[in-house]
């Protein structure tokens, strides 16, 4: 019991929680934006892989870190645009198209990586993002928890505010939400339903790619096969848990990060008694439990999964 208390009292626990939460924050925000506009984007898992690969690859080829971030976002936007064309303009099944995008995006990323680096014994490394303000890390609690994080974590936190502000405080946000709830009403106001949805899906997909980029450019310094490991799917569960609100999405991601950080620490303590795999399963089980708990109350955007064509009801 004192061990548990010690974990909760340590700065490093909260720093780790936020670090683990960061890719999820990007991913949940991206998925939230797509779904608010009425489009489920199961391409997320593959877009994570593409973001992780292309951001890393750009830096490895000599670009600076922020150009790498941009490259990741653009790559995500390209695959998002593919999903958008298939689901919005062609009205195809969002489930199947999304899975198709995930398979396509991840195999494209793996193929590109393998083609550029045919046989390397250990994956080459880049110089990743460093702590934003190491000088301030002496400040109690806030120092290690916030200032030892990299710029990408700060970007994720800023994006939570930005997405919240756009969705809740701007006419554009009102239109995006309306397009996911009642596209006919948006159309009646003379706005283009399909253009709004397209924009939301492309923007959301580039956010997802940033989640991947964080993995290779901040959390680690190399690209591994299978490194995304279901993080995208976890984001899809977290969006429902967050009832499609940016603030709750941040909360959900951080709670998840805390849980994951806790299991890693408990694993080292209890590793002798319980097989380590029990702890590895925990994040996925937690996601399912969270989903089941909120499922009955979840108010899905009303037009989610519904393609919209002019003059068709």
């Amino acid at each position, binding site marked *: 019991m004192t061990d548990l208390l010690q974990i909760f009292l340590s700065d490093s626990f909260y720093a780790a929680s936020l670090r683990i939460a960061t890719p999820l924050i990007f991913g949940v925000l991206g998925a939230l934006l797509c779904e608010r506009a009425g489009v489920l984007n199961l391409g997320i898992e593959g877009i994570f892989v593409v973001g992780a690969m292309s951001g890393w690859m750009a830096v490895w080829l000599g670009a600076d870190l922020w150009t790498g971030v941009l490259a990741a976002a653009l790559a995500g936007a390209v695959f998002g645009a593919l999903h958008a064309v298939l689901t919005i303009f062609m009205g195809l099944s969002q489930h199947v198209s999304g899975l*198709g995008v995930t398979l396509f995006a991840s195999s494209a990323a793996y193929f590109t990586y393998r083609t550029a680096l045919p046989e390397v014994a250990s994956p080459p490394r880049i110089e990743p993002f460093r702590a934003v303000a190491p000088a301030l890390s002496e400040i109690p609690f806030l120092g290690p928890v916030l200032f030892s994080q990299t710029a990408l974590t700060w970007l994720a936190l800023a994006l939570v505010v930005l997405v919240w502000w756009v969705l809740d405080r701007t006419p554009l946000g009102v239109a995006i939400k309306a397009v996911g709830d009642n596209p006919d009403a948006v159309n009646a106001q003379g706005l283009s339903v399909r253009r709004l949805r397209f924009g939301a899906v492309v923007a959301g997909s580039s956010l997802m790619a940033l989640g991947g980029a964080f993995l290779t450019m901040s959390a680690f310094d190399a690209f591994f096969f299978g490194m995304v490991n279901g993080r995208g799917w976890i984001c899809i569960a977290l969006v429902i848990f967050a009832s499609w609100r940016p603030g709750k999405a941040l909360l959900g991601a951080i709670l998840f990060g805390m849980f994951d950080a806790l299991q890693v620490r408990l694993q080292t303590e209890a590793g002798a008694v319980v097989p380590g795999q029990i702890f590895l*399963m925990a994040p996925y089980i937690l996601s399912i439990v969270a989903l089941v708990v909120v499922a009955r109350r979840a108010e899905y955007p009303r037009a989610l999964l519904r393609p919209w064509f002019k003059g068709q009801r």
Partner: protein
Amino acid sequence: MIQLTPREEAGWLAVGAPVIAGLVALALAAIPLALAGAPILAAYAQMANSVFGSTFAMTEVLTRAAPLILTGLAAAVAFRARLWNIGGEGQLYLGAMAAVWVGTGMIQAPPIVMIPLVLVVGALAGGVGMLGPAYLKTRFGADEVVTSLLLNFIILIFVQMMLEGPLKDPMGLGWPQSEPILDEAALPKLMERTRLHAGLLIALAAAAITFVIMSFTIWGVRVRAVGENPAAARHAGIRVSRAYLGVAMASGALAGLAGVGEVAGLKGYLTADLSPGYGYTGIVVAMLAGLSPVGVVVAALFVAGVFVGADGMSRAMGVSSFLADLVVSVSLIAVLVAGFFARFRVTWSKRAAS
């Protein structure tokens, strides 16, 4: 302004669309081949040779097709009811694990008992694996896409845990692998000096049975009614929840059989890398097949051919074998697009109709 008019009848496009999609995907492989710096025509020739070049090559395609037929059927049956079972990969492993559990010495019996036993146990395990997400859907309204997907990860970790624990082969030199399946429980080989095993016959039989059940029984009609419109089906007196649970059981069982085939027919023992994503590829197979059980057999042969061909080409020319995954995923997207053109006539008009 682009105008979409629904076609009265898809006609030849219904069958033609997947064929065109497959060919387009294969043709598009020229782009990554060029990027990888391979001689394109020679690469295609090498791929064809790896598939059709010898009897052995062709049996390799059939060997690969067997699990894909089963996971393809698993996806097709579920998607017909609009039950999104994306957990085929996990259910495959559950089936394989169950087969190993009873087939490595727990029970000693002649093949006539052992083979049906591992098949039934594996199918049940796979079915139960999808029953969970279906129950959470019907009881709590939890989205089965997410739950079945996340279960894949949980099950794979569970398999690793079992392979380092109760299922670990003490004679395995420390490798995380199970004890070998007893000879009595192993599926017989179909041809000398090849890897082709009776799993293919099981897959073909499963396709035939699925076709009959989906097309000619009340149950099949109910399942399709639920898929087309759950509200209307409920109104018509169909117990929708029960239909979902039944479909889940059937779908998971088919994926579980794929796992049994791989472990009892091909590998002989269980490892955590038994399946190179057959569960996920099954979704592509089902979509290429237009969710038809007979189509699944054809689509599985195509996808298996792509994998075997690309593997052979990759070994000969040093192009990454991820090319196969690329072609398969592009064929999924191509078949979706082709399906769109089969359903709609796309015309260009100067003015928008109001």
